[in-house]
């Protein structure tokens, strides 16, 4: 089934550790996005990539980095995790970086202790 695959589905991590959340899409979409979802705050954009090889900052980029080496993969890295990064993380993609629907994965639930 075509779509977005995120891994892991959940993780408990000690503060200060490095963590990479994986995201792969098989729709050959040019644009990809990372969001975090916190209760009462909705989804907030962390980073995005409008095409392979380029990335940009969203609303809440601090403490996170991304790379886009190819069309299909868009990993999100927490270099040194802090408790405030406890959240549910969603990866999304769209055909182009424009005003059109984004398609979401089922998320990674991350707890930082």
């Amino acid at each position, binding site marked *: 089934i075509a779509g977005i695959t995120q891994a892991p589905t959940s993780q408990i991590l000690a503060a200060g550790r490095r963590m990479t959340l994986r995201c792969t899409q098989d729709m050959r979409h040019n644009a990809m996005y990372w969001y975090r979802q916190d209760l009462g705050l*909705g*989804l907030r*954009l962390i980073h*995005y990539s*409008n095409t392979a090889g380029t990335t940009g900052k969203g609303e809440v980029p601090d403490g996170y980095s991304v790379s886009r080496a190819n069309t299909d993969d868009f990993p999100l890295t927490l270099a040194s995790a802090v408790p405030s990064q406890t959240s549910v993380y969603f990866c999304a993609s769209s055909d182009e970086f*424009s*005003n*059109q*629907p984004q398609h*979401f994965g089922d998320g990674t639930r991350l707890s930082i202790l």
Partner: protein
Amino acid sequence: GESVGLHLPTLSVQEGDNSIINCAYSNSASDYFIWYKQESGKGPQFIIDIRSNMDKRQGQRVTVLLNKTVKHLSLQIAATQPGDSAVYFCATTDGGTSYGKLTFGQGTILTVHP
């Protein structure tokens, strides 16, 4: 900055009734609007979208209405079913620096009682 909000955080309806979920936005430059449904443990699922050159768009059992004068968006679900129970989010972008970037509202919890 742009904000997107919802009038009601929760909505309870009886099966078969029509549901209306509302959303207010603050940026008059917003030109693209989208509704998502999110079930527990899942990612947001696209329902319907509308662009600022329209004021109504219909899908299967859903209708989105856009009132740019008062910056208001609504999602109407006809003959609501228990499977419609979920959190519904509106989101918007504008043609300026946030082009292509969605700003989400906080969500409305819809509960459908059999």
